[in-house]
């Protein structure tokens, strides 16, 4: 899936390169607040590549990574660390105001959420001392997003970007506990784990053409 997503992004970049439209590169920092209450809020960073399709429309590919700590629940992920990297494609609507100095933006799109969960090392180590191993794996997921933002032109090729993005995704996870002596294993699946978030971002957008 990762390869497929990266291939898609490269295809868009190649397509954009052949297009006469302007290309913009943004770098963003921000804060992601997961909608799952057992996940802590976390600082995030990412980048965005925009291709103007029209005066009012653009297409963007972006990535926005954050790493959150999970408190752990019986019917959700255990205590640990969760890294989330949504690779997204968005259709962006723009409404240039004041001669283009201020441009409110609206975005909608889909993405592929790459998840990496690590069980709290202390839990794993404690269970190892009594002879049990634990694995917990969170699946990647397809998600959707809606966003609003504002581009503030600083000069012809540089803008200040602020936005807020609502991401919706659900994923599945699997856990396994194994007694290293008897090899007695017990496993389970976790369904419909909320991987959504509200992210606030601020960054700089460089216009290449």
């Amino acid at each position, binding site marked *: 899936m990762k390869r497929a997503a990266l291939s898609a992004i490269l295809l868009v970049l190649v397509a954009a390169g052949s297009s006469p439209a302007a290309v913009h590169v943004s770098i963003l920092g921000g804060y992601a607040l997961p909608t799952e209450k057992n996940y802590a809020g976390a600082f995030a960073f990412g980048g965005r590549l925009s291709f103007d399709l029209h005066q009012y429309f653009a297409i963007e590919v972006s990535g926005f990574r954050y790493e959150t700590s999970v408190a752990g629940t*019986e019917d959700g992920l255990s205590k640990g660390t969760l890294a989330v990297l949504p690779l997204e494609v968005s259709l962006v609507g723009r409404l240039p105001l004041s001669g283009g100095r201020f441009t409110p933006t609206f975005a909608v799109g889909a993405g592929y959420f790459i998840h990496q969960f690590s069980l709290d090392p202390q839990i794993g180590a404690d269970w190892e*001392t*009594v002879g049990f191993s*634990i694995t917990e794996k969170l699946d990647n997921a397809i998600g959707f997003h809606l966003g609003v933002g504002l581009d503030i032109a600083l000069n012809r090729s540089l803008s200040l970007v602020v936005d807020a993005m609502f991401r919706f995704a659900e994923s599945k996870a699997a856990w396994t506990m194994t007694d290293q*002596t*008897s090899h*007695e294993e*017990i496993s389970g699946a976790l369904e419909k784990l909320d991987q959504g978030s509200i992210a606030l971002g601020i960054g700089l957008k460089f216009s290449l053409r």
Partner: protein
Amino acid sequence: MRKTANQNSIVGIVFFCLLLILFLMPTRAVVERQPQMFSSLSPAENALDQSHPKLQSALARLEEIYTSSGLTRAKEFAGLRKMDMVEDTVRVVAVTMPMPNQIQTRMVVSAMKQRIEALGGKIELAYRQNIQTYIPIQALTTLASDPLVKYVRLPLKPVPLEVVSEGVAKTGASQWKSIVPYRAQTGAKICILDVGFKGYESLLGSELPATVVTRSFRADQDIFADEVHGTANAEIVHDMAPDAKLWLVNFETADEQMGAVDWIISQKVQVISYSLGWFNSGAGDGTGWICEAVEAATSQGTIWATSAGNAAEDHWEGNFSDPDGDGWHNFSGTDRYLEFHARANMPVAVYLNWNDWGTWNGSDYSGSNQDFDLYLYFWTGTSWDFVDKSSNTQNGTQLPTEEISGWSSKTAGTWAVSIRKINATRSVKLELFTYNNDEAIEYFVSPGSITIPADAASALTVGSTSWVDDSLHYYSAWGPTHDGRIKPDFVAPSGVSTSTYGERAFWGTSASAPHVAGACGLIKGNSPYSMSQIRKILEKRAVDLGEAGKDNRYGYGRLNVK
């Protein structure tokens, strides 16, 4: 003639003096050695047994004493035999005739309740076909004669297998202290099912959890029952599984235990710790009332950890053998006495059963037609003094059991039992247990010495080893079961420390079973494993001792959770 009279007087005086000397000197020593009340309450050794075939012989004897000597003497006998009496009534279990279905059983039990009340009885409880009741002594034979009654007997009672916990470290449970529960609700539900919990309140929040659930199924609802045994067991469970929620449940009789187990199941308790043993309460092959209770609980996914018993050197079994043809079993050569020693004022008990229980139908055995009696003697220094006998009739429907209990001696001494064939048409295998003796019995046979319900197939049966060096304790009972299955399943430490027993160590398989119950609760309370998986985990983790693999002394080996 006058001279002759004087001579007669002198002879008379000398004879009187000799009698006085005999009375004051040697015979006094012998009298001191005699068990209390032997002569006055013992039956005649060779008297024909004419008691009602549906009445336990001890109850027949009680009625006989009451009729011939009055209530005071009857109370003495009842006290000696540990019978429960209120005024002129005695506590018994009336077993009603087996019926083909539950509806008819209920009808019979209902009818019997009315008849018992008409006889002046006061009913305590009814469980399946058994009615536990107090009944006037003089109505015992009348009750036994009722056509709806199969048998009238004393209530079956367990004995604490007590013989405090270093076992926590030994078994590796101490390494679980830092464990964060994984996909488990913290704290398993563990029930300590025992006879009494005296002193438990003072240990709450320290040796026991701050709160516990208590329930007494005794007729008098007394959770303490003047017995600390259950409290000490609860301490060990709490030591092993500190986060576990504890249920302290007690009972006194078998029928009360049935109700207790039903209630425990309804509470969704996950582990039962049971450090009690029963004699003459089943065929030793996993059948019987007590084992039935174990199966009822385990079929709901509950783990039942039970003590193997402490009878490795208090058990004899063998085929009836009478080479001298006098009707008495010869334990060796022509020796018909199996001897054992007991301390002063220690009430001894002997239990005999043989392999003629018939078929177990889920609520009762079809019964025995091979009749044997059990005799108890005390060594006076010169001869065996007959003390008591148990002469239940076995002519087809009764249990193949005899039991004598309660007798004690003012001084430490040697006791003996003999087994007499009354009416037997085939060779049977006899099994004898003694209780409260202080040394190994003569001719003891350790294999097969587990007590009930250690023979239950689904029970986790626990023997006893030293927490210091893993050596098997001399008393730890051995398998196999009477149907050839290997028991025990595990061994666990005993001779450990508890607050309840203070400076005395807590010995016996009683102390071992709660270690296993606690270990099960420890894993259940911290992990998502099912009870059957926990059982397999413990089997594989056990430290193999004795013969390689599972064996009849150590089972899979010593409990190990690390």
